[in-house]
């Protein structure tokens, strides 16, 4: 394929970038965010936490190694709304790939734009903060496209987990031979999290986002896992309540990303929308308990209030982000519950934090 069709990327503040269309021809709007990872585009696009977002990949080439169905997908389909990159490769090189990223996007109805100075765009977003944006290969008039952009809802106060969550409960792992039953709350879970849990002897039942606590308990789980997911944690009162009940049950609980924010909210700590979030595979985190550092995969636009955490009688900060000193992990002093803001399952990203799954298993073991 030769990219010939022009496309337009328009930001809420009126900034426009012209480039070439990729993926499906069409129009797509969402919140714009950038990811600085140099590998793992397919995992990013299928991560439900990116639901409804337009992802800017800062690495200079995208598509080089094509896509691999299933093995490198983090959920059943592409979750992002649109993609922006510098150079797009329709030609790919990998013997084990299924097909090109272009074909993948066409099949998934994803609109994208390439030949954009993503660095300029990142510098802009870094200055101005996150905002909504729209990509179109149909409407190339800025004024007309702005009208479309206005229809895109704002992320703040948006509840999206129930949109990406499973509608029916399902099981992961084998019951026979498993050591613990872990109830997984699916607010937009990634496959690799479930893989990490089952590999450590957890038999998982994955529940739809809005499942009430009592219904979860009927399965008689040994512990709880609170997943990652898209949207504003403050808009998920139902989940905050469920998590609070889970914590108080005294059974081990582990939360990742949104799950971390929900544990904070459930402990009475507020969350806030960040200026432009953390998205990349190179975020430095220090474990304050061991003194060791880990390079982490991150993808979040909301964060936990640091002062409220430090002053909380029953919550302890266990991990901090070394770049901006934001809270990267917490634990309850009164209950076996802990969570991290980043993604220990990685996919994409470094495996430095896999030990957290071991710690969860140890906690289950002790309980």
């Amino acid at each position: 394929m030769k990219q010939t069709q022009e496309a337009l990327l328009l930001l809420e503040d009126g900034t426009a970038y012209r480039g070439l269309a990729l993926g499906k021809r069409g129009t797509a709007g969402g919140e714009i965010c950038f990811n600085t990872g140099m590998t793992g585009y397919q995992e990013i696009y299928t991560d439900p936490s990116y639901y409804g977002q337009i992802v800017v990949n800062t690495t200079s080439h995208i598509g080089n190694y094509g896509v691999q169905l299933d093995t490198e997908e983090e959920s059943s389909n592409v979750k992002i709304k649109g993609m922006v990159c510098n150079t797009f490769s329709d030609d790919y090189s990998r013997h084990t790939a299924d097909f090109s990223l272009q074909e993948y996007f066409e099949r998934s109805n994803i609109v994208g734009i390439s030949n954009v100075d993503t660095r300029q765009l990142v510098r802009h977003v870094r200055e101005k903060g996150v905002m909504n944006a729209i990509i179109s290969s149909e409407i190339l008039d800025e004024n007309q496209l702005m009208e479309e952009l206005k229809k895109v809802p704002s992320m703040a106060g948006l509840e999206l987990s129930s949109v990406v969550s499973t509608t029916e409960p399902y099981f992961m792992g084998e019951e026979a031979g498993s050591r613990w039953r872990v109830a997984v709350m699916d607010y937009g879970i990634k496959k690799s999290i479930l893989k990490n849990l089952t590999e450590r002897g957890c038999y998982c039942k994955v529940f739809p986002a809005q499942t009430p606590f009592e219904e979860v308990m009927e399965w008689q789980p040994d512990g709880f896992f609170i997943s990652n997911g898209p949207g504003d944690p403050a808009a998920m009162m139902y989940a905050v309540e469920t998590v609070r009940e889970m914590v108080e049950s005294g059974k081990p609980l582990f939360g990742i990303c949104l799950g971390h924010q929900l544990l904070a909210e459930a402990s009475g700590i507020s969350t806030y929308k960040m200026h432009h979030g953390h998205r990349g595979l190179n975020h430095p985190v220090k474990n304050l308990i061991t003194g060791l550092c880990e390079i982490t995969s991150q993808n979040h636009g909301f964060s936990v209030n640091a002062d409220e955490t430090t002053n909380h009688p029953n919550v302890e900060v266990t991990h901090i982000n070394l770049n901006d000193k934001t809270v990267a992990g917490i634990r309850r002093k009164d209950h076996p519950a802990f969570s991290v803001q980043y993604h220990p399952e990685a996919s994409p990203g470094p495996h430095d934090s896999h030990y957290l799954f071991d710690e969860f298993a140890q906690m289950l073991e002790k309980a």
Partner: protein
Amino acid sequence: MPKNPNIKSILIIGSGPIVIGQACEFDYAGSQAARSLREEGIKVSLINSNPATIMTDPINADHVYLLPLEKKYITQILKEHQDAGTPIDAVLPTMGGQTALNLAMDCEKAGIWKKYGVELIGVDIRAIETTEDREAFRLKMLELGAGVCQGRIARSFLEGKEIAQEIGFPLVIRPSYTLGGTGGGFVDKPEDFDRALTNGLHASPTHEVLVEQSVMGWKEYELELLRDGNGNFIIICSIENFDPMGVHTGDSITVAPAMTLPDTTYQKMRDLAIRCMAGIGSFAGGCNIQFSVNPETDDIIVIEINPRVSRSSALASKATGYPIAKIAAKMAIGYNLDELTNPITGTTSAFFEPSIDYVIVKVPRWNFDKFQGADRSLGLQMKSVGEAMGIGRNFQEALQKACQSLEIRRNGLGADGRELRDQEKIKHSLAHPSWDRLFHIYDAFKIGLSFKSIQKLTKIDSWFLRQIEELIETEHEVQKYELDDIPKALLLKAKQKGYADRQIAHLLGVKESKVYAKRKELGIKRVYKCVDTCAAEFAAATPYYYSTFNTSQEDPDNESVVSDKKKVVVLGSGPNRIGQGIEFDYSCVHGVLAAKEAGYETIMINCNPETVSTDPDISDKLYFEPVFWEHVFDIIEHEKPEGVIVQLGGQTALKMAEKLDKYGIKIIGTSYQALDLAEDRGRFSKLLQEMDIPYPKFGTVRTSDAAVELSRSLGFPLLVRPSYVLGGQSMKIVINEQELEQHVVKILHDIPDNNILLDHFLEGAIEAEADAISDGEDAYIIGVMEHIEPAGIHSGDSHATLPPFDLSEEIIATIEEYSKRIALAMGVKGLLNVQFAIKDGVVYVIEANPRASRTVPFICKAYQEPYVNYATKLMLGDKKISDFNFQPVKKGWAIKIPVFSFNKFPNVNKELGPEMKSTGEGIFFIDDLQDEFFLKVYGERNMYMSR
């Protein structure tokens, strides 16, 4: 753990003279380490016998020892410090390549460190032993669960034969404990095995070789790691080799970040890298690990581990902006990564992994032309002498820029009329990699060879090949138009793919200036982006830039903001090659620092990733760009400096003078007219004649007929050479008409449209050279050196002494007087080097070069005075000769020792002549002329005299 308070004084071991496989990347590492340690209040002592390095400058260390890298000198230094009551507490041997590690190991075995209570830091002896001993390494990797090639160590010929029988062909022979793969090789057929095995066993100092399964054609990667004392790891950079397994990494075109690695494979590699580094020993510092990936299955095996700062770490530092050596030095004294700040952003943590939003391509620079008869094929043994790096927003842009940087008389990758069209030759080259394979891949696409056959012959990943194919497609599109009707979008596309104006001009059949004018007219803008380690996620505090056309042309985001300070540009010397190496980088760095002292904002332009000059800490602004007219001119247009310094960056910088002058850009110091006068033998000789200074009879010709004619009046022997070259390129002494004709034809073929110089050769003469600095009105001779070998051997390949050892005072006075008069007559402002031949008491001037010479750093080191600094201030008009209080430290003699890399080219004629062949030099101080070393070299001189 914070800084270790017990370490107050550290010895850093350098890498010695430049040889193939160990070049100025270790000057960069050593300089950074020394600065980094001194920042911490630590006293730094430095041992290195290479005088041309910045690391051995007084600006860099508290105590510099220009001594041979031998045990006895280490002992001498340690004892001196102990006696003075300021003992050395620790030694850092990881900044000086394999040479420094080997010396540290020797001293360890001899118990020297223990005796003087010196702690070895940044290194684990076990790790060195494991990684250097092929068999121990293989077993260790298997123990760590890392895949390795099948194979075993052979300690005898018979054992080697047995192993070969076990694993079958093709296989590889890797001798233990050799540098840059010396003596190793691939063996495809049983009949070639015996000879290769014998060579390998001979090359290894321990007579051991690893006979191993060949993974030729697999993909090759490198990771650069850092670990602190707490066990925290980070990967600074992933590097992918464009050339698959089979070509030494130092000879491979390499790309960062890795282009064709999915996250799953990359993370497996990262896990493996961390496991390996942790498994081989415990040390805080840098480590380089090479991997190979089976393209069919994504299986990974470990090829090699270097538990130290390496050539690749210099590349990774320049590629990402992350200063590996600087941080590694801090970790060696106890700091943990999370206690340090990322020096590029100045705000975020040093514990993080750089993310880059551009591509870098490194292309090696070879010098096979200097080694007649050398095996030019690339394999396990490194043969390149230097490298250039291109930075672009996409692979193609970076690739074209790297090719524009090479100084091989090409304008980039193709589109310059120098393409090869012979299908058979191209095919052969694709399958047998040599220095020009990259160009032949391009040629193959251009003549229409199928993608499949190109891939089959080269085994290069199809993604890379497709990128080159796409270049040809773009060229075809461009060629459909004339300059007048070429659409803006298409011209922009070509520029975005890195095409130089000259290449586009070639495609359109017009002049470069027309293309330049066209892109200005169409408003096609080149902008400068920052290398910031973090893909713009955080604001950067370091002014390190590269250019690109990949930006929104309506509203381009130019990150290089021009200040209102007065500025000066210093042009660098490009990739290292024989005749133009680290000496010129030394001068550039001093030029930058001197101009800063004189109140200028300094702007460095260079494209050599190994050097100190491309350390963004040196200049106020670094443009990592080809020293290629278009790039230089655009930077000048953007920055509008007061002028440009061309005297310091060797021939690369000097040859820009003509165009700079033509475009009305001020050349700082000696004018273009004077520079040109020195190159124009006719005018220069006329000047000498007017001044009554003798010179050998000479003439200039452009054809072989004219040469023969001229030879009759000059008389044989004759020295024949092309004009405007460095390092005696294509220079030859001929003794009869037949030889003369042959050589002239060869020069005309290699370098068309060039004047050829014929000099009467003064047989048996003594050569000497003088370096001077001048303000235009007064000149000062900084040093006179006498060559030990007689005339006929290139000055770069001769041993020489400072001051002369047997010239009479009268002759030295004549040399000084001539040099001064020439400097003033030419109007030199800055540096001047004059070469002399002395025969029968007559002093002849052979040539004068109004620029920094190869000997200037040597004199600065020997006399302990910063002459390049002085010269720069003279150029800028900031100071006069009379402002300096010269106080050279003159004691005994300093001998310049040329160092060769002939062991890389076993079949090459090692005889020396007028064409330079040495890759580096050492310095050796003697107190009197009865010195054993001097007498030995002096004795050999007679051998030359008697020929």
